[in-house]
């Protein structure tokens, strides 16, 4: 996973952005991809951390980066239900 502009140790770090959380990579491993999109479009994933935070990941051509922590009401309902169910199982 590419840290994008969120990694404070990277020369590409954007100080106006949230710092990359330490669990971004591990949450990505179980993140759910947004489906039903046009062929050839980029990828978007949502994941849920152990402490209940929702993360978004954006990508193009296999290169994915953490793109922010999302409020629960900004995670698509169907994906949130899957993430919450996975957490509870």
């Amino acid at each position, binding site marked *: 996973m590419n840290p994008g502009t969120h990694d404070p140790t990277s020369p590409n770090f954007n100080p106006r952005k949230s710092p990359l959380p330490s669990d971004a990579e591990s949450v990505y491993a179980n993140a759910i991809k*947004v489906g039903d999109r*046009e062929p050839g479009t*980029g990828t978007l994933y949502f994941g849920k951390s152990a402490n209940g935070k929702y993360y978004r990941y*954006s990508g193009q051509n296999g290169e994915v980066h953490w*793109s922010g922590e999302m409020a629960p009401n900004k995670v698509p*309902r169907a994906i*949130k239900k899957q993430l919450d169910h996975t957490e509870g199982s």
Partner: protein
Amino acid sequence: MIQPILSKRTGNRWMFAVEFEIHFDAVKAWPATWGSLWLWVEGRVVGKADESEMVMTGFDSLHEVAIETGTRANPLLWGAPLHDALDVVMWARYESDHEPALARLISDPASLFPFEVLPRWTGAFFDGWEAILLENNTSERFIYRQESGSPIEATWPLGTFRQVVNEAKYDFEKAARTLVTGSESMS
């Protein structure tokens, strides 16, 4: 500091336009080229013009909205107050603390997905923004708001959104590929 090496606006910003930048550090990364992307609606900026992201993340989502042009005729939404129309389309996709007024009239929430423009899958470029498109035979209404703000409406000829977005996306792809490869060829 971010160094834009190219910026371009497509459309008439006093009606509807799309503007993008390509940022210096990202030119070798096509199609993961980084930059900024925002909209102009009747002279107002819609989106986070201070965001830097993979530009295609935004364009792909806007393009998906564009190709659904002609599928958004809905008398219920067309006749509803702006905030009710926005609320129910957002409710269809996302969780909400309260059920909006029109929800009880919607048998299949997924039927409202095509009306959502923002945030949809645009990523960080439009965090905090919500927008929908409604259509009749001749015009389309773009209804939008920034989080917790009042909704605003703009109306323009049917197909304007599709035309401007597709032109802007083409311009971006051409520019980004040229910067990386020196060739304008489009696959």
